[in-house]
């Protein structure tokens, strides 16, 4: 069995505890307009052009983004990083894209990771069948759950899908998962208005369970913009500036009032 992955990050320190390896799985049912991993949206391998300059000349070559990995390959990569993972209390994170878009592969790879003693995390946008979540809960130590917008119409508008299923899955995990961290992207002009943020704070205050460990506020950043060029996509966020440090600090304070540990960044 194989899964398609578009990037592997070592010394990943923002996707769960300790030093981790994060596998970015290709394919996502959402199409958030601020997406900073646009190459993760399509579930198929894609061509991209990479240009390097050497001695004043440019050399371009087409490279394939997205490669199929076997479970054994994944475990091999983890084993090579084992010393760091063990020393730091780290593990493996499956992110994306949306890892639950490859449910059969995901459950098998999670099982294999657990069998090899690795702490597992799944970073999900929440948009998959509830059965899929039920299946992986026993093999997932930590869920990183993205919450983008609480208003369904607006959610539809900025991500392309409804949030009903997402919120349903969120409640399912609140009750059944080992640990959850909520990740809220703070996107200027999309979800950072006062009303919505207040609603979000209240939502989190109402969601407090033993499983809910932390809220991560992820400020919008521009590192995705060069990727849009490379992948020949239109960047709808062109010209948007990241939220200020001060704005993030105030937000952290506000979310902190819920009593749930809040952090800026992963």
């Amino acid at each position, binding site marked *: 069995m194989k899964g398609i992955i578009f990037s592997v990050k070592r*010394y990943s320190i923002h996707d769960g505890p300790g030093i981790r390896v994060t596998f970015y799985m290709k394919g996502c049912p959402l199409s958030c307009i601020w997406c900073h991993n646009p190459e993760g949206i399509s579930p198929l391998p894609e061509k991209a052009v990479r240009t390097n300059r050497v001695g004043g000349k440019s*050399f371009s070559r087409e490279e394939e983004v997205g490669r199929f990995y076997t479970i054994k390959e994944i475990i091999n990569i983890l084993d090579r990083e084992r010393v760091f993972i063990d020393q730091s209390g780290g593990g493996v994170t499956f992110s994306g894209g949306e890892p639950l878009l490859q449910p059969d592969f995901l459950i098998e790879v999670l099982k294999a990771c657990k069998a090899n003693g690795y702490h597992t995390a799944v970073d999900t946008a929440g948009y998959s069948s509830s059965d899929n979540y039920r299946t992986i809960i026993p093999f997932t130590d930590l869920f990183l759950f993205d919450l983008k917008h609480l208003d369904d119409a607006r959610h539809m508008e900025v991500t392309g899908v409804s949030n009903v299923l997402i919120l349903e899955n969120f409640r399912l995990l609140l009750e059944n998962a080992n640990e959850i961290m909520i990740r809220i992207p703070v996107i200027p002009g999309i979800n950072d208005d006062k009303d919505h943020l207040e609603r979000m704070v209240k939502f989190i205050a109402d969601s407090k369970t033993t499983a809910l460990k932390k809220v991560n506020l992820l400020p919008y950043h521009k590192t995705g913009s060069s990727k849009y060029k490379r992948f020949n996509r239109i960047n709808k966020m062109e010209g948007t500036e990241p939220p200020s440090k001060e704005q993030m600090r105030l937000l952290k304070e506000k979310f902190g009032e819920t009593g749930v540990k809040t952090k800026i960044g992963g």
Partner: protein
Amino acid sequence: MKISDRVQKLREQSLNAVETMSAERALLMTQFYKSDEVRELSAPVKRAKAFEFLLKNKKICINEGELIVGERGPAPKATPTYPEISLHSPEDLEILNSREKVFFRVDEDAKMIYEKEIIPYWMGKSNRDRLMSRMTPEWLNAYESGVFTEFQEQRAPGHTVLGYKMFRTGFLDLKNEIAEAASKLDYFSDPQAVEKHEELKAMEIACDAIIMYANRHADELERIASKTKNDKRREELLKMSQVCRKVPANAPETVHEMLQHYWFIHLGVITELNPWDSFNPGRLDQHLFPVYKKEMDAGTLNMDELWDLLGCFWVKFNNHPAPPKMGVTANESSTYTDFCLINLGGVKPDGTDAVNEMSYILLDVIKEMRILQPSSMVQISKENPDSFIHKALDIIRTGFGQPSCFNTEAIIAELLRQGKSLEDARSGGASGCVETGAFGTEAYWLTGYFNLPKILELTLNNGFDTRTGKQVGPETGNAADYSNFEELLKVYRVQVNYFADIKIKGNNIIERLFANWLPVPFLSLLVEDCIANGKDYNCGGARYNTSYIQGVGLGSITDILTSIRYNIYDRRRFGWKELTDALKADYIGFEKIRHDLIYETPKYGNDDDYADQQAVTAFEIYYDSVNGRPNTRGGVHRINMLPTTSHVYFGSVTGATADGRNSGVPLSEGISPFQGADNNGPTSVIKSASKIDHLRTGGTLLNQKFSPSFFEDEESYHNLTALIRSYFSLDGHHIQFNVVNADTLKDAQKYPEHYRDLIVRVAGYSDYFNDLGEDLQNEIIRRTEHEDL
């Protein structure tokens, strides 16, 4: 704690002092050598009397407000020369005076003294003259070609550190030891008894000399006190004078006494000769802790006083730049830093956690003082708590390159493998950049850098160096002659062995020059068992005697060999002709090839076994050529892997290489990947770097670049701590962090005046960014940019 106004003033004074060359020592040394008495003396006694003469006649300098006294020159940063080691010509003085980086201002008086007194006497008589005249044409060719450098060309071997004993021993005690050793001399069966007697006599003179020197300071302090109107300062001066009367004659019993005791010893060592790495108090937290504790309990010392003493002590090191260097020696170690590396943490002689209150206090002092010298490091043992590492990271994150991190267990294993006792190994540490040593018991001399990529260049070119136009190595054939990779390696090994032989032969000749002409009776007092053996430090008197040759360019040689294996033999992407044409043209017109070499070829630093295998191969070839070869002091040669700034010099003499590197560009430093070659993150760098066997070296250097974003919060500290501990669990010897962003550096290059205090990690040490050559500045900017991405 914050530093007091007093220390702040002294610190500013030290930062603002201009490096000058002082002719005082050279003049005194010349007067002494000219005297009639000298001709009749044995070498050790001559050197001891010279030492005594210097200390008796040099100007005593006491700076306002300071608590620890003693300057090597007549004023802070007034730096002496050592004509008996190497003589500066009038042209040299001009270069020193006017060069842009690491200059020493030479005033007209000094120039005059040199012309009239120093040069006429020493012409042809310095150790450098003696040394160069004894080297073979093969040695001189290799040296000129940039295959290796020679540490003892302009400086004396030093490379040692004070151990536990001397922090509890006065020189009067040593005189008793000397008398005892003399009484045991066996004139019936020991043919060296007479020589030993001379050596012991010399040591005794050196004891008296240092005590006399301290008393001269006491006299001067009393004189100044008698003229001082400020009651508080007068009291201080009188107390300082009492301290100088007590130490170093007697064992120190307070923190003040211990620091002053050490400082006189330090001055003695760097006045006697100009040994590499100046000198070093070593495990300072261990030495100070018992006296600190005793005084705190007794209420005779408070934190403010302690901080003042430590601050004054720190400034002293910064007042003492490395003696002026010229030519290749200046290139290989282009810095004012004199490599005194204070060790904190580690384990006690019984193997238990050595971190104590003083370790934390000294880390605070390092943070607050923020000066170039002394340099500092933390020894990290599995016994040490994480909080100790976190405290070190707190300073590292500020981006001035200190402290660096060392693996105590690796150091101990390296020393044990070399035959040291367990207690001696645990009392050891690292000095200079990363060099492993048994403190207080070992003479571990560095002898020169060894240019591994250059030897491959010669290998591919039938031993001929196109830059110097000389046949430097044996004629072993041309690149195109090798039908497979193994054959190439075989020939490379022949060339490495050839140059190692030349270097070792040279080393053994040079060692005897120092043993016969330039014994160091004062330094010999400090390192066990010179007294008991009746033998000089420079003649194998120490308990352990090691000679090191420092391999340079592991990352580069790995990438070059990997590129050849991958592109020529395995993938057959192109042939030897194409590659050698491209190298000859420095890749002009061969950009596509260069692109493929850079972007489409496996590189060291990515945990890629294909590439890293060549690191192991290159390491083993080098190791086999050097390790275990006898030196003349009863010890053997060993390898370590560090560059100081020689990777820049070695790069400048090495043409374009098969890894896509252009001619003249710096080589990789230490065991770090070539700049920009690693793109898989720090864990992969660590995995690659740990594939060579660190425990069979005397130190390796790994430089890891981090942007400040890796030091954000508690979690990032936790992860960095785990990263360090992981590397050390893989037997890594040392890792250091450069924390800085590229924009800061570019701005500093543009406006150096705004960045007088900008310190960056170079390689094994930190330096003021402004004092680095432009090429090295650019290299650091490049590698920082790489990290920012």
